[in-house]
């Protein structure tokens, strides 16, 4: 019992919370970047420009079918071969943005597909170009359908940041490892603390997501 009380000292918890800040910081930056990049890729799959949609589709397929862990390795250990040696946090952000963009591109693609083709045709028939029809008519409907999926993707993203521990990013899981690295008795308490923190953040987010989803429909 005393072990658990010692494990949950304010110093240790504060150390975890510092990690949580990094976890959330990385998640938010990655989410924003990959929302923009992924949306663009998802939309481009519908643009009738030669080779573009096929190329984007190929990239998405490659990214989605590799383990995130491998993408993190490639970024951190591979990029230096191309003359860029990223710090651990930028490396994690780049790797996760690549991965998430692929995931979001696919979500956006199916979101757009869920909007009846007649919406696009109706808009195009009045003289709107592809971008105008997408922006004013198709995307507002598509994103509304996508909100629940996007939120659950964000939840996965937050959990996936724990993989960045492999390149020693000071996110929450890594911080926990440092704590029990100094005292092996704290191993289980730290795992419990981690589980609680991830659960609270992710579950709260899921709740908000489903509330927003219900509100919009």
């Amino acid at each position, binding site marked *: 019992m005393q072990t658990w009380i010692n494990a949950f000292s304010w110093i240790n918890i504060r150390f975890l919370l510092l990690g949580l800040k990094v976890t959330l910081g990385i998640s938010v930056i990655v989410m924003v970047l990959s929302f923009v990049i992924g949306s663009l890729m998802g939309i481009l799959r519908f643009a009738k420009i030669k080779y573009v949609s096929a190329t984007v589709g190929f990239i998405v397929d490659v990214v989605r079918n590799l383990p995130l862990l491998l993408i993190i390795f490639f970024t951190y250990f591979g990029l230096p071969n191309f003359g860029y040696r990223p710090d651990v946090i930028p490396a994690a952000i780049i790797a996760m943005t690549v991965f998430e963009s692929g995931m979001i591109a696919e979500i956006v693609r199916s979101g757009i597909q869920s909007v*009846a083709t007649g919406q696009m045709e*109706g808009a195009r*028939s*009045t*003289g709107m*170009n592809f971008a*105008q029809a997408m922006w*004013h008519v198709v995307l507002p409907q598509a994103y509304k359908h996508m909100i629940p999926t996007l939120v659950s993707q964000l939840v996965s993203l937050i959990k996936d940041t724990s993989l960045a521990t492999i390149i020693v990013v000071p996110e929450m899981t890594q911080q926990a490892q440092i704590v029990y690295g100094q005292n092996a008795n704290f191993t289980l308490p730290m795992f419990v603390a981690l589980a609680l923190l991830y659960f609270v953040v992710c579950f709260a987010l899921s709740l908000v997501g489903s509330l927003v989803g219900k509100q919009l429909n």
Partner: protein
Amino acid sequence: MSMIEFNNVQKFYGKFHALRNINLKIDKGETVVLIGPSGSGKSTLIRTINQLESIEGGQLIVNNHDLSDSKTDANILRRDVGMVFQHFNLYANKNVLENIMLAPRIVSHVPEAENKQRAMNLLEMVGLADKAQNMPRQLSGGQKQRVAIARSLAMRPKLLLFDEPTSALDPEMIDEVLQVIKKVTMASEMTSLIVTHEMGFAKEVADRVIFMDQGHIVEDDDSQAFFNQPQTERAQQFLSKIIAH
């Protein structure tokens, strides 16, 4: 002066030959009705005119734009060519007024006040001024189609295409839509091409009737002559079956 000119146009869906050697000329101001059995290529033909479908052979000229030329900008062509769809295709995320005002605002940059005035006049014309603030899902099928007609007119098209405008409607709503179409096509200088299965309406509104079967234009005659005395056996057969109902 012709508004639409098909010269030996071909269209394929994979191996399926959807339009075969289409030759057709429609003059400015004409109201032409396109009839024929399902799968005969009527909708495909009408959709090639505003380039919702591409063509694979021959030449197609619409309002002086050569659609067989890959440099032709479909967006510019479509400013002058309206379309009314079988399933209305109203923008589900916008209210009735916004449905009508969107294209004039962002495509032809009509000033906001004028745009709104025009939209209200159009709603008045189709008898739905009181529905301006409603969302499409709150309207009946007939009302939706009347809004869609107003929307297509908002761009002041020179040519209006109707692709089975009453086929998705409940029977008791067909008439209100046909009345509006009649009003639109008869009052203006606009050229109209209408795909329909409503023979009584066709007889009343058409200057000319085109009968299609299996991707061919089988018959092309003025309305009176066609309904009184169709020339081909296929058209006679078709008419007798339809009118028997």
